[in-house]
């Protein structure tokens, strides 16, 4: 009789645990989906852009946000140059945020379309960089560099930038730098000075 009670008790507990677990799982899923949707709406909502405008006005710097993206990009590049995976992760995440809040309303319609595409792509690469080992970070950095280069063509920048090129990494890869001196983000210390200045921007 006592045995039966114990068994029933254990069974009841097992069921409760399972039910609780399944509820939790379902809830988590729900939240994930919701979060995703909110994020998407966020990107397109006018309200969001308005708040960006306010932020811009406060900065009183017309290109503030694009410069912020560049700043994060260079921090990320420097982290890769010094083979620092953890730092690159950090700056990948920071850059993703800067990309997401870029105010594009002042550009022409055509430019806005292109900027949206660039940002959509760049955000994905920045996100990958924020959660990948260094070899992957470098792969994504290559495409991110192309995105940022195209972005600068539209937004412009206050500083002179140098497009540098390493013929060895992945059949040839470019990146941007603030200084003329080559420091290779694709190889880091393994081949720090591999590459050359390909183009001067500004």
């Amino acid at each position, binding site marked *: 009789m006592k*045995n039966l009670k*114990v*068994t029933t008790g*254990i*069974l009841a507990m*097992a*069921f409760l645990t*399972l039910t609780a677990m*399944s509820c939790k*799982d379902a809830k988590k899923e729900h939240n994930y989906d919701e979060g995703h949707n909110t994020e998407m709406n966020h990107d397109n909502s006018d309200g969001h852009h308005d708040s960006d405008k306010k932020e811009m006005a406060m900065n009183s710097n017309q290109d503030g946000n694009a410069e912020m993206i560049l700043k994060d990009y260079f921090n990320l590049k420097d982290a890769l140059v010094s083979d620092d995976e953890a730092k690159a992760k950090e700056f990948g995440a920071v850059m993703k945020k800067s990309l997401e809040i870029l105010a594009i309303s002042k550009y022409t319609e055509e430019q806005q379309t292109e900027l949206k*595409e*660039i940002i*959509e*792509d760049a955000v*994905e*690469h920045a996100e990958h960089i924020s959660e990948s080992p260094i070899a992957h970070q470098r*792969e994504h950095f290559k*495409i991110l560099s192309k*995105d940022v280069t195209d972005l600068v063509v539209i937004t412009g920048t206050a500083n002179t930038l140098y497009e540098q090129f390493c013929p060895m990494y992945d059949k040839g890869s470019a990146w941007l730098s603030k200084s003329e001196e080559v420091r290779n983000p694709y190889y880091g210390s393994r081949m720090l000075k591999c590459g050359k200045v390909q183009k001067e921007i500004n």
Partner: protein
Amino acid sequence: MKIVKKIVLVLLVAFVGIQFIPTERNQSDIVPVTDFMLVNKVPNNIKSKLQVSCYDCHSNNTNYPWYNKIQPVAWFLEDHIKQGKAELNFSAWDSLSNRRKSSKIRSIIKQIESNEMPLSSYTKIHSDAKFSENDRNEIIVWIDSLIK
């Protein structure tokens, strides 16, 4: 001994119990107009390879094996499919901008080249999904031609 019996019993009940928890099925009869195969001229041999090796996790239609209807395997797969589709969904290919398409293609090439895709946990069960050296080269060369 009694304890062992009880534990076995509990596990058994738990196993039966979790079978009743529903999972989301990734299945669809409709091939959307945005599907990779519809917007690109894919050679037949490559088409079938992509279908077998990629489409289970990277499209709106998974070809479910029988054991996937059993928990907890179903959960494991559901999660993989969700993640896979978030990264790349061949069914929604044409909804991507050209920039993103070429970006995705670069990532596809990298993943196949480095043997990271198809996942080894997947090819262990689906041996037909494994790429030979030849398959790999063929797919990479062809898919690379899309962005050139």
